[in-house]
């Protein structure tokens, strides 16, 4: 199952990089090591990886910048930050830079492998039906899950972040059903990295701003008080 999965290990600590790579290979993944920031960004740009394990303090170019640059260039390869900088501020910074998860050093091998599998599982779910050219249409909006790009009712180009796209996909797959905040959080993050489910509320606000004619009176992204959200493609009066 893991045969085709390629993982890029960006870590300048040689022992740690080798240890991680050997364990990933023992689990059936293909591992490539990069010990320098600029080289790592080059490899990420070249593509072909299913996941990037990214250290923050790196010679040449730091991990946050690599992640931000990749995301700004539309590269959506999942990124798991693996770093000695483990404060809440550091974690938030990593996630805001576009990281999918954050594991502070020193870490347990079991936990690292579990997180790697979770991220890959989440992405294979996302990629399953996200074939190029398959568009989600709702109201006068459309969205392409493969490119993370869409067009809103007024013709504006909308480039969604991974998390926004995943949340939109969960809601669209379960159209007209009520989806709890916990379900959305679990699908988009897999781990309780954020202290509260309010994070989801913020993402829904962002989706409404992008796609609703009147974000205050949404027709597609409905709040179900006390539970979560419901998505309707046709559009309903609030």
């Amino acid at each position, binding site marked *: 199952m893991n045969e085709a999965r390629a993982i890029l290990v960006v870590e300048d*600590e040689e*022992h740690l990089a080798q*240890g991680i790579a050997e*364990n990933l290979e*023992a689990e059936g993944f293909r591992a490539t090591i990069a010990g320098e*920031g600029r080289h790592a960004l080059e490899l990420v740009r070249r593509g072909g990886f299913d996941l990037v394990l990214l250290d923050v303090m790196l*010679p040449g170019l730091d991990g946050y910048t690599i992640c931000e640059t990749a995301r700004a260039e539309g590269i959506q390869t999942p990124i798991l930050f693996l770093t000695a900088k483990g404060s809440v501020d550091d974690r938030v910074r990593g996630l805001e830079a576009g990281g999918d998860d954050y594991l502070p*050093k020193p870490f347990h091998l079991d936990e690292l492998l579990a997180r790697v599998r979770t991220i890959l599982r989440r992405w294979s779910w996302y990629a399953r039906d996200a074939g190029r050219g398959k568009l989600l249409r709702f109201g006068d909006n459309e969205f392409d899950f493969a490119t993370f790009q869409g067009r809103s009712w007024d013709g504006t180009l909308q480039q969604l972040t991974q998390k926004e796209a995943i949340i939109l996909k969960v809601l669209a797959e379960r159209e007209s059903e009520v989806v709890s905040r916990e379900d959305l959080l679990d699908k988009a993050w897999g781990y309780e990295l954020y202290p509260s489910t309010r994070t989801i509320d913020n993402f829904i606000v962002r989706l409404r701003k992008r796609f609703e004619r009147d974000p205050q009176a949404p027709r597609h992204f409905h709040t179900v008080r006390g539970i979560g959200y419901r998505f309707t493609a046709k559009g309903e009066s609030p």
Partner: protein
Amino acid sequence: MSPRTPDRSRLLRIAFLAILVFSAAQVVWWMIDQRRLVELETERLERAQVSAEELAAVAGEHTHRLRQYAWEGGFFLLVLAACVAVIARTLREESQLRRRQQNFIASVTHELKSPLASLQLAAETIALRRPEGEKLERLVTRMRGDVRRLEGMVGKILDTASLEAGRLQLKKERLDLGRIADEIADEFADRARERGVEIVRTVPAALCVAADPAATRTIVRNLVDNALRATAAAGGGTITLAARAAGGEVELEVADTGVGFDPGEALRLFEKFYRPGDELRRTSRGTGLGLYVVRRFAELERGRVAAASEGPGRGARFVVAWPGCGEEAT
């Protein structure tokens, strides 16, 4: 300190500047007022038809008083400006030290957690996969390297703590510098080989220094460690250990072909916590303590240190000098 909290030292500097401007304005206003009083007094005396001689005498006295006020006021302003300059300098130094301490915490966190993470990973790999033969040997070699790195880090932190506490009792013994340099070079031989670095020794035998054995070993070890990091960061190269006796002292030179530094930073490299560049993008690792310990130990031994480089990417040269054994009797 969080970057969002206002910088207290900046506020203090603004407050001091405001006090200085206010005091200067006060002195100027006071002098203008005195001058006006003198003019009023002169007018009053003229109206009272005082004789010309008396008027001239009073005017002379007034001028003298005005000059005296000008000198006193000027001197007061000068003293005040000097005080503010001293306080501003102290605040600037304090804020630099605070910034370096923050950098130190970031780098020491990295330096301690990375080998710890590697050790934990190796231990858990052994527990999970039960490797044998060559695989096990490779893991154990890595673990030894990580332990050695942690040992070095802890050593530097403890040396700094002892230096700060000022309770260090240094012995003075006759030491063979050549032998110590050989011992330390041997200590680093494997690590250097792994990183494509060659250590060349040209320290002559029987060069005697009068110093503490542990402190001397620490000085040489920290200099070689520093050179090895810089050379490894440049992708490999050569470290040369050389020594000579001159003018009653013995000089050890540790030269490398590593990443070098900006010549303007030569002195600051020996300051506590000083690390050039951006902490997140560092090409070589360290804590900013190694060279500080070298300088402090050398000073306690009545020696001296110096660093030189022709610029980034052009290698570096570190020199430490101890009193030779001839001074021991004095």
